[in-house]
């Protein structure tokens, strides 16, 4: 057991720190603190710089434009990026979900067409999984793809799709066999979002931001060469995507929470709330929970490095992070008291905390609701009898 960086990790970290300091986009450091939101044009520039410097796709194999680096480098990259509050890579879905799925199940043509442009941010991805009638019960999905010889014709509706308004491609799960048992009639497609018949409508969240979208597919032609894995075997492919969604998320989320805890401490100090014993107790609790998350991620990483399989510790990281992040947002607003009702430029920190708190309500819903994650822990980790 040793929590210090190895010489190799320390060298990677210090080189990265210098690189980030030298390459942050002009004016980025001086932006208003309300920018908890993504800035698309800055993210595109940043993605390209990361790719050219070899920091995009660190753990991807070299043949696909990655670095073949150990997971610890990716963890350090996420930590340092969060600490420096860098912009986000534009390809959150591509790097975290579409890319790893294509690497695991894609054809050689799919790999050479998509992986490098995904890393460089030239090709932006969105996810077409959830539907108005299919949320946690994903396998009940109804968007259909009809066989038309060398292509499919896709019709249906997807929802809660981040980046769809700027995406070039969509990882889409569709029903290709309506007569098969529900898990067995699903196919996994890569769909060009510029195709005829694709329409994207923004959905406005409780923050006021249109961060995600509805996607309507009307007789959209998708070549059969865009099937990932086998026809009607898309459920297993989709599980790979979801494994990666939750697997790599922990470090990024925890690193961001670490930055927020730092800001919370600054807020407590500047408002004088740090003299209140009840606030002090809650700040300490947030900090302790952050350590618990951080070291639970490290444990999961150690298991992954030693066995090649993510440990069960990772399952709880998202569950706990979401709840801790929600408590933190509330605590910040409690510190502000009645001033928490002020918003945007009239508020302390230009609406930063108001945005954080409202946005955090989505955390226990997106990427697997807390209820579903508790079922996963109960049934797959602890082996309890199935609930349905």
């Amino acid at each position, binding site marked *: 057991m040793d929590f210090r960086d190895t010489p190799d990790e320390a060298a990677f970290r210090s080189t990265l720190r210098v690189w980030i300091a030298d390459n942050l986009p002009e004016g980025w450091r001086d932006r208003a603190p309300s920018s908890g939101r993504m800035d698309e044009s800055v993210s595109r520039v940043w993605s390209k710089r990361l790719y050219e410097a070899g920091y995009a796709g660190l753990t991807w194999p070299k043949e696909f434009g990655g670095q073949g680096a150990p997971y610890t480098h990716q963890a350090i990259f996420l930590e340092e990026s969060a600490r420096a509050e860098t912009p986000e890579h534009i390809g959150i879905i591509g790097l975290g979900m579409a890319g790893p799925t294509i690497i695991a199940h894609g054809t050689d043509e799919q790999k050479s067409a998509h992986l490098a442009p995904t890393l460089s941010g030239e090709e932006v991805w969105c996810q077409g999984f959830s539907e108005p009638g299919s949320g946690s019960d994903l396998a009940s999905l109804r968007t259909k793809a009809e066989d038309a010889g060398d292509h499919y014709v896709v019709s249906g509706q997807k929802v809660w799709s981040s980046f769809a308004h700027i995406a070039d491609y969509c990882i889409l799960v569709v029903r290709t066999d309506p007569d098969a048992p529900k898990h067995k009639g699903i196919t996994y497609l890569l769909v060009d979002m510029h195709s005829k018949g694709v329409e994207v409508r923004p959905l406005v969240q409780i923050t006021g931001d249109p961060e995600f979208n509805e996607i309507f597919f009307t007789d959209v032609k998708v070549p059969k060469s865009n099937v990932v894995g086998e026809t009607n075997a898309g459920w297993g492919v989709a599980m790979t995507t979801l494994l990666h969604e939750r697997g790599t998320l922990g470090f990024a989320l925890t690193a961001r929470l670490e930055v927020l805890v730092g800001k919370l401490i600054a807020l407590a100090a500047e408002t004088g709330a740090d003299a209140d014993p009840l606030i002090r107790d809650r700040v300490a609790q947030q900090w302790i929970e952050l350590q618990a998350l951080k070291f639970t991620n490290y444990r999961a990483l150690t298991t992954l490095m030693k066995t090649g399989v993510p440990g069960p510790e990772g399952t709880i990281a998202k569950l706990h992070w979401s709840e801790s992040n929600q408590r933190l947002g509330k605590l910040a607003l409690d510190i502000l008291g009645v001033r928490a009702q002020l918003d945007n430029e009239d508020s302390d920190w230009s609406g930063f905390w108001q945005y954080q708190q409202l946005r955090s309500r989505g955390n226990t819903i997106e990427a697997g609701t807390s209820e579903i994650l508790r079922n996963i822990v109960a049934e797959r980790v602890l082996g*309890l009898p199935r609930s349905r």
Partner: protein
Amino acid sequence: MDFSFTEEQEMLREQVRSFLASEFPPEHIAELAESDEGWDPESWSTMAELGWMGLSIPEEHGGAGMGFLDECVLFEELGYGLYPGPYTSTIGVALPALQSAPGVLELIASGRARVTFAGAEPHGARAIEDTDRLTTSAEQNGPGWTLTGVKEPVADLAIATHVVVTATAGDGTGLWLVEPEDDVVRPLGTVDTTRRMGRLKLEGHPATLLVAPGQGDAALGQIRRRADAALALEAVGVAQKVLELARDYVSERKQFDKPIGSYQAVSHQVADTYMSTELARSVAYWAGWSVAESTEDADRAAAAAHSMAGEAAVSACERSIQVHGGTGFTWEHILHRYYKRALSISQFNGTPATQRAAVAATLLDH
């Protein structure tokens, strides 16, 4: 970065777990918990022969010269097995006070000494650092010292051969070693009868100086952080065991023709117990490593771990009792004994909230 125990440490863990499983099954623990002695003295020499007493004691004093992290494996497993005996008092709390008493270290390593720590005074709430109300006094008489005062509650006092006592003399707080005779020890009624409390009443009792007056506070800081980490590990062991009891029970027990673990109102409580146990384990291992390596962060890592693991163990027991229904509320079931141990751990030297206050000071006061 490496978050795993060594192969030797994993072997030690296996060894402790199977020893406790065969020597201390639940019926035997219940029997000991209700006996006059409260423990099995023979287990102490067996454990010494297995080399568990002297793990971190230097080889020249009869130990194995290993480290605190090796002992952490013991604390966790002894919590898991609810071992009734003064291992945590001796190795987790008192040991660092004995660096100037190599003779006692040798006695510990060979299983001939059991040591506890007497820091609390009547009406005090902290077992180690009760220095605000310290009235026990030390007086130098020629080459030796004598102590006068009352210490209570003191864990494992009735079964200890030696006691480390905090007292004041001219220059401030110091630490002394006492070998108490029966007439200065009074057992006290205790909730957790596997870790019984006692009162030590000293009236000019001879004592050996361990840490000079005025240097006691620094020594207490060292002792506290080690004890916090040790207790956090023990708490993780307790939480793990009651989690397993809950998991097994809800998988077997049927109501409305289905195992109750298939109902989410039940299974989610077990899932939450798993989550809080794993989170606490991560912090406890970090604290164990930080204390073993004396890192800059060791004090607050230990405080954070004790706060989190203490609360996790208490709530794990409460949820486990709940999902066991009436069965979990009976005297016959082992659960209440784990629950009482969890409470004892989390209240030992300050509550989870006082630990958080210490953490808050490091974050907010500059």
